[in-house]
């Protein structure tokens, strides 16, 4: 389970931009993709720092 969660950043790196690309306007789509990726990175860091140790324990 924790290994799958660790993999989430790899999945997010591909899925979030593909999801953002659905927005018709390219600049808005790009902004959405960059924002999504930034949120993914911050969220992953928080997950690795606070959540993962509890799951692993």
């Amino acid at each position: 389970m924790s290994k799958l969660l660790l993999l989430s950043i790899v999945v997010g790196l591909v899925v979030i931009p593909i999801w953002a690309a659905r927005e018709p306007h390219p600049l808005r789509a790009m902004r959405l993709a960059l924002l999504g990726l930034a949120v993914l990175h911050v969220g992953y860091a928080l997950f690795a720092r606070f959540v993962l140790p509890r799951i692993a324990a």
Partner: protein
Amino acid sequence: MSLHQVRQTLRISLARHRVSGALTLAVALATALVVRLALPETWRVQAEVVVAEPATLYRLTAPFDAVPRLDGDLAQLPELLTSKARLVALVKRTGLVDRWAATRSPLARLKDALVERVRGPMSDEDLLDALVAMVDQRLGVWVEGNKVFIACEWSDPQVARSMVEGTLVALQALRLERDVGALEAAARALDGQRAGVEAELRARLESVEQEQRAARAQGRWPNYAGAREQLRRDTGRASELWLEAANTHLRAEAMAKSARFRTLVTVPPRAPRRPEGPSPVQWALGLLVACLSSHLGGAVVSGLLGKRVLSDAQASAVTGVPVVASVTREWSGVMLPIAPRALLVVSLLGAASGAALALTRHPLGGLGPWLLVAAGWALWRLPLKWPLLGLLLLAVTVDDPTDRPYYNLWRSPLWPIGRVFFTNIAWFTGFELSLMGLGALTLLRRLAGRAEQTEAPGAQGPGPLRGALVLSFVTVCWLVVWGLARGGIFREALWQFRALAFLPLASLLALSAFRFPDDLRLLGRVLVVGSVVKALLGAYFMYGIAFPSGEYPPHTTGHNDTMVFVTGVVLALVRVWEWPSWRHLLQALLWLPVLALALKLNDRRIAYVDIAMALGFIYLVSPMHRAKRLLTQAIVAMIPVLLLYTAVGWNARGGLFKPVVKLRSIVAPTADSEEESSNVERDIENFNLLKSWERDMVFGQGFGHAFTEFIPSNDFSQSAFGHIGHNSVLWLLWIGGITGFFGLLLYLGLSAFFFARTLPVVQAPEERVALLVSMGIIITYLLQAFGDMGTQAMQLAFFVSIAVAIIGRLTSRYGRWSPAAIPLTQKNEPMLDGESSLA
């Protein structure tokens, strides 16, 4: 340039620039003769020794001891025999310090005199150091099987022979010490133990006698207090020790007496009859080749530098009128005056040709500078895609010596090329240096205004994608500086960042070089050639070399080859999926068995995960069509059967259930299996990486550091002692923090973004296949990065760079990065390259 033009240029150059040609010839001849006379001769002496293990003696004298392994000991011999202490002894033993001045050539003496005038006379210690360094360079010791070769090249044949003889003596002494020294030491220790026991024995006897005397005088029974039992035990122990020591002495003696039979000199060092290098006939031939090539090269270079009309094509370019007929002059034609600039250039090239002949001592050595000039000229004019395709072909076909090809049991014919391209030459590998060279060449050609002729026309990908690639490179540079500023070691950093730094460069080059869909077929052919060559070589090694000689290596091809095979499988299947035709089906049926063999020989579980994930992704993003509907229905119908098959075969060992066994080894390996142990090791490493990352989660540690081993692993050396993580994703997070990771891999996210924007509007099946396979490559790369050091292999990086280029170029082609882009739901025709896009 056509053959006719080449002939015309050669003919006219030779006719009009005879003086330049003759002068170049003269310079080449003079340089070759001067360098030949000035350079000292080299004499080579070589000896060959067959070393045998005294297995019989070991078994006869000590049947219960393990026989030492010969290969391990032999592997250390070159290092032992060329250690500094031994080289100093060798120089002193051969009296090289005294003989040194007499063996110098006139040119070397002149150099010595000049150096002495500037720096003053050299002290004996400095001379000894210099000679030791020289011997270190010129004395070679290497091992092949059970043979040891010793060779020395020197300017004096007697010195060369003395060096080899001295090393031979040292080798025999080392072997004797290794076979006999330990036994004699053991025998001496046993003698010492026996002497101690005997001394105790005597002391105890004396005390017994004293007690007897005292008891007799006092009229009582003697009280020995267990001394008699101790005496009995000591007597037995002394006898055992004596026997053991005598046996060990005998073994040492037997080893010493038989030593000369175990280091058998099969080729003794003899003074050579003639120096190294070509024979007089070869010399004459070499001079002829150098002179002819210099004459021709001098004339042609003069002609090209003179900018005079040499061919019909030039005439047409100058006049703007096509040449319809020409008058052929006789050989004596019009001669042109010599231009000083051209004269200087051809003289230098002629001198280089002569020097190359004398220095390389090869009959064709004189051709070298002219070939280099021709290659440089061709590279300057060649479109960028050809050298890039050449590099891709090398990446997918040749062996990477750092990846343990063929389990290091065999070297394929492609191994020497692989050694040049994948091992360090000057800080970087040949492959990396080639990429750097191509980058510099592209920059120079742009500055010289030749980009249009050598790069693919049209927009070179969307601006944000190119920006993300530049950002990735800048982030690598920043993390190197950041890491070194925090106490990192550059030597370690170099290993960590090189593939990451070259990936953006290769991607930018590929974006400039290729035009899609025109070049897709070429890329596909390279992939087919690479995968087939690897599979056939692997099969030959396994069934023709390894099995017959009793070796059963678990894999043949290396880790980096997985990407070739996975991409091949995905390409073969996606072509049928997106572009169904009998031809593509037949091609897939021919190619897939070869790829299946290659995957079997590659023996990596992650390859099957990569294929499943890439195909699963392609299935998900494909629109619903007939084939997808049929496949979906088939999968739904097969689910109960598949579940039953998996459940029945869960505890099976192979046979019909081999796929289930493979699946279980990935998902839930059995306890105490190799896979389970590997998974545990990786879990420990991941924990250590995550804990190390906690120190600076935003900016990371930078390159040049090792992660901390909070929980010790069984084999820390597998991660280069913490410098490389198997899980490249966590490893990069530790190195760069979330900011560095974002900067490093943003281009992959943006590639997925542009893929998703472009795919829905692409109708041409070959472009759809290219886009889907490119995304499959990116997914494979990310999974390899998560699973097993995917970011560290240059071959993988090169594949990703091609995938990024395909996505970027097709995005520009369809104008998908444009504020005016048509909504995604509407199918549109491709725009002209880059038209009205932001790229």
